């Protein structure tokens, strides 16, 4: 009995040790600054940026329709912008997944030095500055750019296509900068895929599609979910890609929040918008995690 108590105590000590750095760091350098913004979101915007220390719940009213006063009217456009952003972010997740999943298998089946080389070649492009990479896409997609020139010279099209400053160019840009966010977690879970389970499934008479759906997909799911989360979140908040490749005609919540702080000088509204989006994403991800946990429990049972 005493022994198990000692083990338990040691386990607790290890756990505390493991969690302490994160807890300390986030509570000081994250939760305190974040609470500043929470407070700001309920204050009146200062005339020239900053805040006036007056209770002011109307920032939320402008987005949600309630509560309102004489100055703040409900505008449905903020919800519209949010839906558009979510749509682009989801598209980005799907495309990065479709690109990365087979690539992860391709790499995982290599051996030794070749595998390292392939991994290295895939991550190398991301060491070039993001702005430079986005700019390169601008040059590729513009009317006199690489794609249009090739398509025109092969006679496939007569007039240059409008590739730039559309949802399409925004999604391409997002996919390009976020691909490693999907690839790395997927690769981490594909690489440890236990092929004996795959063989067992086949021995039990499952066809390839069944094996894929019942064995391979669930085994690599942690990587897919992890990757989707860390692609979806930055895609939702990114404002540099829509500004450069969307010509600022494609609006995302990131642009709106940025503009509230840096053009309209309305910090509380920007803070309120940010907090609403954060609440939405946390609920979404927590829902996903608990579903996954339940599925895992069922799997074990």
């Amino acid at each position, binding site marked *: 009995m005493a022994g198990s108590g000692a083990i338990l105590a040691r386990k607790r000590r290890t756990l505390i040790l493991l969690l302490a750095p994160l807890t300390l760091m986030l509570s000081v350098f994250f939760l305190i600054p974040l609470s500043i913004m929470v407070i700001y979101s309920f204050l009146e915007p200062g*005339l*020239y*940026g*900053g805040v006036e220390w007056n209770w002011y719940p109307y920032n939320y009213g402008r987005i949600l329709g309630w509560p309102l006063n004489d*100055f703040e*009217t409900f*505008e449905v*456009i*903020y919800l*519209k*912008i949010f839906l558009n952003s979510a749509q682009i972010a989801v598209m980005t997740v799907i495309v990065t997944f479709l690109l990365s999943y087979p690539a992860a298998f391709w790499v995982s089946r290599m051996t030794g030095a070749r595998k390292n080389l392939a991994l290295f070649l895939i991550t190398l492009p991301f060491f070039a500055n993001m702005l430079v990479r986005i700019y390169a896409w601008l040059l590729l997609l*513009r*009317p*006199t*750019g690489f794609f249009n020139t090739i398509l025109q010279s092969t006679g496939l099209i007569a007039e240059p296509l*409008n590739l*730039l*400053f559309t949802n399409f160019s925004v999604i391409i840009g997002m996919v390009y900068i976020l691909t490693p966010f999907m690839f790395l977690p997927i690769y981490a879970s594909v690489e440890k895929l236990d092929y004996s389970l795959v063989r067992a499934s086949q021995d039990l008479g499952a066809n390839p599609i069944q094996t894929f759906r019942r064995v391979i997909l669930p085994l690599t799911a942690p990587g897919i979910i992890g990757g989707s989360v860390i692609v979806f979140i930055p895609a939702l908040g990114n404002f540099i890609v829509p*500004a*450069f490749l*969307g*010509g*600022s*005609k494609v*609006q995302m919540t990131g*642009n*709106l929040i940025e*503009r509230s*702080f*840096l*053009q*309209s*000088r*309305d910090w509380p509204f920007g803070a309120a918008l940010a907090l609403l989006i954060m609440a939405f994403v946390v609920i979404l991800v927590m829902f996903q995690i608990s579903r996954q946990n339940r599925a895992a429990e069922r799997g074990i049972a």
Partner: protein
Amino acid sequence: MNMIKYLKSGVAIAASVMAMTSIASAEGSLNLYNWGEYINPEIIEDFSKEFDVDVTLDTYSTNEEMLARIQAGATGYDLVWPSVHMHDIMQKLNLLQPTNVNQMPGFENIDPSALRSKEDPKAEYCLPYAWGAVGIFYNKEMIPELTSWQQFFDYAAANPGKVTMLDDLRETLGVGLILNGASVNSSDKDEITAAEEFILKQKPNIGAFRYDIIPLVTAGDMAASHYYVGAVLNANQSPDKLGFVIPEEGATMYQEDICMLKTAPNTANALKFLEFMMRPDVSAKNTERLTNGSVNTAAIALLPDELKNHPAVNPPAEMRAKLQIFDDLGKSLRLYTRAWDRVKTN
């Protein structure tokens, strides 16, 4: 194990870098906080050599970005370059300190009409720096001659997606206001709504709202763009191909002043820099690079002909009369931001 080694060396590097930066901010330094691409780098070099001062230049791309940082408490900068209405705001917010630049030698060169600040009409605080019009930069191979906003929007209607406007709420709504005959500082709800509707009507024909259009217009990806007079630098490099014009209906203009922050750590060097900037040769050298309007009457004489005689850089009086500068709108700015949100979304 390796991790710890890395960590150690990382901390060591960081510590040594920190030590280096703190040496740099010792005596004999000057920290400038200016718009990106808004000063000839040679001038900083010249000043640095002549006075043996270590100059640091950090940059911003909107007035509000600079204000947000200063307001949130960023310190260490000596001089900033706010637009006139932002100069007024900063002075009201008590972020600036007097320099008595109007007592300095060289101030007699400053054009009295450039003292545009309402808070600082005698230039006790800030030195007028440069001004310029916001017009249209265009590719002559696509539009041989452009003179008006009307023509700009007509071209856009015939060639959708081939023109751009600035991603700036006051500049772009300002064009709508000008074309409706209103002031760009209007606080009238109906006038602003009319401007909003005008821009919204043009939006399907406008390729993008953006700043970095010079490469696109030069390459012929875009035919014409709402842009600052600084594009004359590029237009003068290939005058057969590129042009910049102030539209005949009128346009907006900007002016920046150099101001000393209340928290400035190197006031003596900052004052030296203000005096240096008033020298006609220095001012002219800067204008050659920025290709915008000069506030220094003695410097204008030193400019090369292609700038001195350029109708957009140094416009004749009747054109100047059609240029409007932004005032601080106070609470009415909200009308513009809401209108702009709708323009961008609908």
